[in-house]
């Protein structure tokens, strides 16, 4: 196993190729561009294809086509580009195709887009949110595995910090169970039936085929599959100090990384604060949040938006404890999602204020 210092963007690209990704398409937008550039260099070396599409609409269409052939495929953008892709992403879910989608986001304003989405019908993506480069490498492997197991798109959420921070990375093959065969993949054959195989958001067979199901029944099947996926995908979270914390902070991604440091520093001073850092945003690690809230007097959510994951934390806590929002927007003039508020001292001050507020207002646990 080799250990190399790598920027997150390169590490994610290399992990995707190591995970078997052989098709990638995208349209440049910082900090997604950084990953696209590495894929453009890496994929031809292994016989794969990387397309600089004319827009995000074409990129997701190309990736959809590649995925339909059973090829491990990925696309991505920043949240703005993923807005354009929403129609296709919901249809890819309805067509039950595996696909990995990157959101190298500018800040954290896309939490609802990632976990709810703006497409049509009942659909969900599995959403993975690494906090550092080694975790991003592990989750990139896991994303392709989950996509194949559940025949469903998996979103990997990063940001400018993750793309640009350099860390020592162990590059090995991830130890994940085998994935099912892909008998549904389009390979140009007709399967001996005399009619071409098809993949469609309206169902996987044509009227008159023995396996044809009515559209309504197809949508019900999708609903059943979503329920199975929600129950079957292991929710992941990192918890710190939640067995004795009076205030539990919930944060994901890069802010989660900062708060992990801040919470450990504050605990070193003896302050009763803990952290739950969701690693899967869908399925949300509700049990980990609920368990931490059970012990604590209050819960506080920090995210770089005006309050989105706040909803999922409130759903997990279900009114048993007060859930305050201590995050907010923060950006510099670059527009890339660099947040001056991500500063150890400023975050420490924020947590101290929330802790004071807890002591003043919350009922004893």
């Amino acid at each position: 196993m080799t250990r190399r210092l790598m920027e997150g963007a390169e590490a994610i690209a290399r992990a995707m190729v190591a995970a078997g990704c052989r098709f990638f398409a995208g349209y440049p937008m910082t900090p997604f561009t950084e990953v696209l550039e590495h894929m453009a260099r890496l994929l031809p070396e292994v016989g794969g294809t990387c397309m600089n599409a004319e827009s995000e609409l074409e990129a997701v269409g190309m990736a959809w086509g590649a995925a339909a052939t059973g090829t491990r495929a990925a696309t991505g953008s920043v949240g703005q580009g993923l807005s354009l892709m929403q129609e296709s992403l919901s249809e890819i879910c309805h067509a039950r195709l595996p696909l990995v989608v990157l959101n190298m986001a500018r800040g954290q304003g896309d939490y609802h887009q990632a976990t709810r989405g703006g497409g049509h019908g009942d659909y969900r993506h599995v959403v993975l949110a690494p906090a550092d480069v080694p975790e991003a490498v592990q989750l990139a492997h896991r994303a392709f595995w989950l996509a194949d197991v559940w025949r469903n798109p998996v979103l990997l959420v990063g940001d400018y910090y993750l793309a640009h921070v350099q860390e020592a990375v162990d590059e090995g093959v991830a130890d994940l169970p085998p994935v099912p065969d892909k008998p549904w993949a389009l390979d140009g054959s007709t399967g001996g039936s005399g009619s071409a195989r098809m993949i469609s958001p309206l169902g996987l067979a044509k009227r008159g085929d023995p396996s044809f199901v009515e559209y309504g029944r197809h949508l019900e099947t999708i609903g059943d599959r979503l329920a199975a996926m929600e129950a079957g995908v292991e929710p992941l979270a990192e918890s710190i100090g939640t067995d004795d914390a009076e205030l539990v902070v919930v944060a994901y991604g890069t802010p989660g990384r900062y708060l992990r440091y801040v919470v450990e520093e504050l605990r070193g001073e003896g302050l009763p604060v803990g952290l739950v850092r969701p690693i899967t945003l869908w399925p949300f690690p509700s049990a980990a949040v609920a368990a931490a809230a059970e012990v604590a007097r209050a819960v506080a959510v920090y995210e770089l938006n005006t309050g989105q994951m706040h909803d999922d934390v409130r759903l997990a806590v279900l009114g048993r404890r007060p859930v305050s929002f201590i995050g907010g927007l923060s950006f510099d003039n670059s527009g890339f999602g660099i947040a001056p508020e991500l500063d150890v001292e400023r975050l420490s001050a924020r947590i101290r204020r929330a802790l004071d507020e807890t002591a003043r207002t919350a009922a004893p646990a």
Partner: protein
Amino acid sequence: MEREVLCTGIGGQGVQLAARTLAVAAVAEGREVMVFGSYGGMMRGGNTDATVVVADGPLRAPPTVARSWSALAMHPEYWARVRDRLRPGGVAVVDAGTFGPEVTVPGCRVLAVEAAAVAAEHGAPRASAMVALGAFAAATALVTLDSLTEAAGDVLPEYRRQHVEANRRALDAGYRLVPAPLADAWLEPAVGRAR
């Protein structure tokens, strides 16, 4: 234990390259390492900073830190923000060519080296950051000169390979500028935990 190095200078001095060289050397020594560079769109003249954190165990520091054990400063223009984050007892290596020979930080150990002049003497006038990095390694024992020399061969892209030997000469010359270490990164206790 985590050792932070805040690197600062202006674009074109090689601050990002020095940060990466230090980090690659530390990885080769089995350390956990993180680097986060911040630099404007301009290649030359603007602010260029990098945070390097080297740990002898799992690395916990986020991409930017509030307090630092050390600093490597090539230019005084953006030095104040770095200086103010030095922990009590911290170590700084600065370029005397841009700072002048007398640089003090209350409560910290500061070494000013004639980085640009020494680089020029060794036929590597653009490698002053490498001279300063060599001196930093000698002053702090954060990494060895051997590891830096090896790393210098890894950090340049193919089209810049012709500069590897000049960088190695500069690292070596900087290392030899320091008569005695100011600190020992891995032996002295951690100081001034972040507040």
